[in-house]
C-alpha cells in the first residue's frame, strides 16, 4: 500500500529524515517508535503534505501513485488520514460541518454523489457511539474548549467517519489518561480491517498494550534502524532506546 524509498527531508536547514525506508502492506498495523527528535512526527507530516518541510530525495508511492506530488487534500481524497498530535481548534466551525464538507469533497473527487443528510447523520451517530462521544460534542466548534482527551477521541471519531485506507496516528496516546486511552484504542481496533493499514507513531509502548501491531520499527537519526514484531516494543520498554542505538551504532 505504502512504499517509502530512501526518503530524505529537511525542516529549514536541518536534515531530519536521512534515507528512510519503509513498506506497509494492505491491512497491516505498523508502529514506529523512537526517542524524541528522531524524526517520527516529521515523517507523519511529510506523508500528509504539510508545508515547512522540503523533500530532498527519495520517493513515496501510495496505492501505486507518487504521493509527494499531491496537495494535502488530494492525499486525503486518496485515503490518507493524519491523526494529529495536537488537534487544532477552529472557532465557529461546527465539528460535523467540517466532516460533511470533507466527505463530500472526497465524493466529488471520486465522481460520486454527495452524501445525503439522513445517511450522514446515521453514520456520525454510529461512530460517535463507538467513541463514547455525547451528541453535544458533534455540534460544538472543532476542538474548541475540548480537553486533551476529548480532542484525541475526536480525531479517532473523524477517522471512523472518513474511513481512510491508511491512517497515520501521530502520538495519539500522548496526554491521555488510562480510561481515555482505552476508548481511543478500542476505536482504532474497531477500524482495523483487511483493506485498511495503520502507521502508529508513538514514544511509549503503553498504547501497544491495547493495539497489537504487526510490525514495530525503531526510528532514530532519521532512519529506521531496527524492525521486528510486537516483542520488539516490549524489549524497548524493558531496555530503553539506548540499547538499540548501541547495538546498531556503526563501529569506529
Amino acid at each position: 500500500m505504502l512504499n517509502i524509498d530512501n526518503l530524505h527531508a529537511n525542516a529549514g536547514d536541518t536534515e531530519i529524515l536521512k534515507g528512510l525506508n519503509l513498506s506497509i502492506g494492505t491491512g497491516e498495523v505498523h508502529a514506529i517508535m523512537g526517542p524524541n527528535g528522531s524524526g517520527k512526527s516529521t515523517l507523519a507530516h511529510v506523508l500528509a503534505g504539510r508545508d515547512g518541510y522540503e523533500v530532498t530525495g527519495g520517493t513515496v508511492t501510495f496505492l501505486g501513485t507518487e504521493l509527494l506530488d499531491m496537495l494535502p487534500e488530494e492525499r486525503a481524497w486518496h485515503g490518507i488520514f493524519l491523526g494529529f498530535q495536537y488537534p487544532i481548534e477552529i472557532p465557529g466551525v461546527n465539528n460535523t460541518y467540517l466532516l460533511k464538507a470533507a466527505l463530500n469533497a472526497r465524493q466529488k473527487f471520486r465522481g460520486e454523489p454527495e452524501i445525503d443528510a439522513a445517511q450522514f447523520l446515521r453514520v456520525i451517530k454510529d461512530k460517535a457511539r463507538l467513541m463514547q462521544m455525547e451528541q453535544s460534542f458533534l455540534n460544538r466548534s472543532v476542538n474548541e474548549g475540548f480537553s486533551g482527551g476529548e480532542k484525541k477521541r475526536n480525531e479517532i471519531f473523524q477517522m471512523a467517519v472518513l474511513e481512510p485506507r491508511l491512517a497515520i496516528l501521530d502520538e495519539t496516546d500522548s496526554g491521555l489518561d488510562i480510561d481515555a486511552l482505552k476508548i481511543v484504542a478500542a476505536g482504532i481496533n474497531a477500524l482495523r480491517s483487511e483493506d485498511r493499514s495503520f502507521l502508529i507513531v508513538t514514544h511509549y509502548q503503553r498504547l501497544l498494550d491495547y493495539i497489537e501491531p504487526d510490525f514495530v520499527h525503531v526510528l532514530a537519526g532519521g532512519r529506521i534502524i531496527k524492525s521486528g514484531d510486537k516483542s520488539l516494543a516490549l524489549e524497548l520498554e524493558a531496555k530503553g532506546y539506548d540499547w538499540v542505538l548501541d547495538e546498531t551504532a556503526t563501529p569506529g
Partner: protein
Amino acid sequence: MSAKNSEVKKLVDKKYRHGFVTDIGSDTIPPGLNEDVIRLISHKKDEPQFMLDWRLKAYRYWETLREPDWAMLNIDPIDYQDISYYSAPKQNDDGPKSLDEVDPKLLETYEKLGIPLHERAALAGVAVDAVFDSVSVTTTFREKLADAGVIFCPFSDAVKDYPELIEKYLGTVVPYRDNFFAALNSAVFSDGSFVYIPKGVRCPMELSTYFRINEAKTGQFERTLIIADEGSHVSYLEGCTAPMRDENQLHAAVVELIIHKEAEIKYSTVQNWYPGDEEGRGGIYNFVTKRADCRGTNSKVSWTQIEAGSAITWKYPSCVLRGENSVGEFYSVAVTNNMQQADTGTKMLHIGANSRSTIISKGISAGHAQQSYRGLVKILPTAHNARNHTQCDSLLMGKQSGAHTFPYMEIKNPTAIVEHEATTSKIADDQLFYCRQRGLSEEDAVNMIVNGFCKEVFRELPMEFAVEAQALLNVSLEGAVG
C-alpha cells in the same frame, strides 16, 4: 509545492459579479453644486417649500465645513464640483404608475442582481424598494403592507404624501449640522426609503431597499427614515452594488431610525459597492451616517452590517439609548481585500437608566487592505446601571494587511459596567492544514475558517440573507491566501 502556488495565483483576481452597466437613457444634470442645483433637485421632485428651505440651510452650512480627517483613511481629494448630483432613468413625466410601465431594462437589471421586482417572482415575505441612481424605480407589496397600516415607499413620495411625518421627524436623529457628509446629503439627497410602522403593529414582511449606482460621474445621496411607533416591530435590510469603473464615485447616505417605547427595529446591511481593482483604481467612496434613536422605555435597535465592498468605507451606525431599559446592538463583519480601506464601528450613547448595549465587530483584512474599528461607548450621569459589552476581533490574511482598533470610552456614572475584549489573529497555517488534511481544498478551508470567525454576526441576519452574506464573503476573499 509549486502546483499549489499556481492554483492560488489563479484565484488572485478578485471577481466582482455586479460590475455591469445598464445602457439606459437618463436624465442627468450637469456636474456642479450650487443653490440653483439644489433648487433644481427640489423642483424635479416637486417638493413642498419646507423641504427646499431645509436643503438650502444644510447647503449653506456645508459650505462652511471641511472634510473630516480624523479617520485612518487615505482619501484622494474629492472635487465636489465634478459630480452630478441627480441622475434618473428617462421615463414619462409622471413616472411609472405600475410595474408594467417600468423600463424593461431596469427590471432586467434587478433580475440580474437577483432581485426580481415582480411580486409573483419575489422572495416570499420580502418587500423591495428599488433605488436606481437618484430615484426609486418601484416598491413592491405596497398595498399588502398598507393593509397592515405600514407605510413603505420612496422617500420622495413620502415628502409629498406624508409631509407632516417628514417635517416632524426628518433631521431629528441626524441633524444637517451633524457632520460634513450629513450636511452634504441633507442638501442634495435624492431618494431612499421611508418606513412608518404604526402603534402595536408587527410588520408582516421583511422590508428591503436595493441601492444601485449606474450612471458614471454621479454620486448617490440616499436618505432613509424609519419610524417604529410604540410597541411596533420591523426588520429592514439594504443591499448595494455598482458597476466597475476606473474613477471613484461618491455615496454619502444618511439613515435615521426612530424607535418609540416598546418598539424594535432590526436593520441589516449587505454592502457590496464596487471595491476597485487590485491596484486600487476606482471603487465607491462610501461615507455614511447612520443613527438610531431609542426614545422610549424598552425600545430596541439592532444594527447588523456586512461590509464587503467599497474602495473606502467611513461608517459608524450608532445608537442613542435615551429610554429606560433601551437596548442597542451592533454586529459587524467588515472585509477588506487588495487596496480597500475601512474605518468603521459604532457609537453607543447611554442616557437612560438600565440601558444596555452590545458590540460585536469582526474585521477581516487581506491583501494590502487597512481596516480600523473605531467605537465610542459613552455613559452619561443619568444612565444608572448601564451595561456595555464590546468584542472586537480581527483576522489578518497575508503579510501586507493591517487591522487597528480605536475604542473610546467615556463613563460618567459609577454604577455602569463596561467590558471590552479585543483579539487579533492570523489565519493560522495549522488551521488550514488541518482542514486540508481532512479533504477540503485550500479555498474551501479559508472560507470555512472565515465563516466560523464571523458566525456570531451572521446568525443575526435574517435567514434569507445569511446565505447571501456568506457567499459574498467567500467571493470577496477569493485568492486572499497565498
